[in-house]
């Protein structure tokens, strides 16, 4: 395997492991928010923000933890036939079928970008272009100019009305990490077919 591919797989593994291990402690944030919710409800006025905050934490939890869960092999497979195959056969089939998984993630990623662009006030049909322009403006003309490119910022339709771009950005980021991880899995399987364990 070319050195760069190995470096990629190891680098992605390390990064996603780090992010996933950060995400796994979010369970305590989630417990904390929900406990506060029950405490505030019992002793004071119930808080407006607890349920939605818990939902945002939950999103970060599973989407940032996703790639790490792939590393841990937590994602179930139907092992009716799969379970009986040799490592090599598994690698061969996986190297092919992971492309389907990647297709799904690409479509998910596109929707995430489009929805995030919308949450920043872009109503057109070219979200990728929008982000590209935004990035260019940010780099060449600074944050103020980039800020002017934004339109109506989407808010959640609740009385608390939080902005939605932060959670959508986390989703974009998480799906992107998932894509990187699945590419790493693909390379790993190709490596196995050539008799190299990365």
């Amino acid at each position, binding site marked *: 395997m070319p050195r760069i591919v190995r470096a990629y797989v190891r680098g992605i593994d390390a990064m996603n492991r780090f992010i996933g291990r950060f995400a796994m402690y979010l369970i305590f944030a*989630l417990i904390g928010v929900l406990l506060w919710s029950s405490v505030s409800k019992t002793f004071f006025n119930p808080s407006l923000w607890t349920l939605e905050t818990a*939902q945002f934490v939950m999103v970060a939890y599973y989407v940032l*933890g996703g790639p790490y*869960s792939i590393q841990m092999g937590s*994602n179930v497979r139907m092992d009716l036939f799969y379970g009986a195959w040799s490592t090599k056969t*598994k690698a061969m089939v996986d190297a092919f*079928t992971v492309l389907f998984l990647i297709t799904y993630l690409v*479509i998910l990623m596109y*929707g995430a970008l489009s929805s995030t662009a919308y949450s920043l006030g872009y109503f057109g049909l070219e979200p990728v272009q929008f982000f590209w322009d935004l990035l260019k403006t940010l780099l060449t003309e600074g944050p103020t100019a980039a800020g002017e490119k934004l339109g109506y910022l989407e808010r959640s339709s609740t009385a608390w009305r939080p902005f939605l771009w932060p959670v959508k950005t986390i989703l974009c980021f998480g799906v992107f990490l998932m894509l990187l991880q699945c590419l790493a899995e693909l390379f790993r399987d190709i490596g196995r077919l050539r008799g190299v364990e990365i």
Partner: protein
Amino acid sequence: MSYEWIAIVMFAGMMLMLMTGQRVFGAIGFVGAVAGMLLWGTGGVEIPFSAAMKLMKWYPLLTLPMFIFMGYVLSESKIADDLYRMFHVWMGPVKGGLAIGTIGLMVLISAMNGLSVAGMAIGATIALPELLRRGYDKILVTGTIQAGSSLGILVPPSVVLVLYAMIARQPVGQLWLAGVIPGLLMATMFIIYIYVRARMQPHLGPAMHPEDLAEYEQVTDHPVRLNYIILAALVLVPLMILAGAMATEHALGLGLALGALSFATRRNPLFYRDVFMKEKYRLLFSGVLPLAIFAAMMVPFVNGWTSLVESSAIGAITAFLAAVLKGRMTKEVFETSVRSTLGISCMFMWIILAALAFGAIFDGLGAVKAIEDLFTTKLGLSPWMILILMQLSFIIMGTFLDDTAMLVIVAPLYVPLVGALGFDLIWYGVLYTITTQIAYMTPPFGYNLFLMRAMAPPEIGLKDIYVSIIPFAAVMVLALALIMMFPQIALWLPEYVYGK
């Protein structure tokens, strides 16, 4: 493409993808997303992501990581070890008593976690080797553990019933209560089966001698005779009052009735076995802890002080604190619990995410209507026929789908139909849960079977596992039939508690 063809192509495509052994969420998501892109028209490509927003808004899902965490804390921190010893010492002297005790253990474990995996893990790692060492028949033991762990999703809390509640839009509290009596009924039927079997063939489950029990330290040599029924009443009656499930005067009546019963049975050796009191009480106390965790979670919820989601967090933190207080929350236990919770939660969430997209696209392309049409108009079946066909289809699908996938893919298609046919959706939730459990343990393929195979020691072969579950599956089918014939078995308790 006609609606029927879309339904067939999408469903077959998904099955085919699943067969390849790719991760379940990838298989489901791929078929949904590609169908959305190719068949929907403008904007279909956005649906997989809009499913993420739908999932975020599904607030009962917040309970999922909580119950998973709770289950891991309890099994990793070995709080269940004492529980097992409790049943071991109390039930050991009865023929087949260790197996009966294992079922009792499973009931308690079920009350503390929402999945059947934890029960399976505890049963396979703690109970299984012990029972084999004591000369119990390996087939009886294997079957007992598989059957017992199936109680995990029937006795509250239950993750599967939370998911079902979201899909069927039924109250989780009522569904959980609906699972209580069928769960206990099934446990009782398992126990009866084991007891009768061990009486007829004592070599399957030999009774333990008091000397065998002496290896537990602090056993005194002054056996005291005590009736189990009194003990059960002492625990059960206050608990039911506390949970608000029973008025005080009824509980009093129940206590009296049980007292009379214990008097009548005072000569039956099953109920007055020699008891080495000190150790037994110590262990009994350890059995109270899980009950306390259960009560800390359920009492505020049933009384309406906290919401379901909040209660799940209370349960998680109580289990965690209990492990800390017992000195069992070591670094390893902490690490494993937290990490495994992330792994399993992610597994669930990504499957649900993919399945929500699949479902919305399937629905928006008209395939749901095609299926409804097929069952009701084209086949012209009676409601009960349709119901039974659905149950059978679950058993077939249980051979290759995992429980979450089955729930999020198939239940959205079936549940509206069940409602339209005039059946009670709470009752159906219980039927559904038992059916899937049967599906996971019936040969040749089943999720629980594979788990068992992975966890069992080498002397237990696949054939043993297959053979072992036959009588228990038969008991479950019998329980299922009883609940179908007498819906009140499931519906009495929720109606009693929630009756306005």
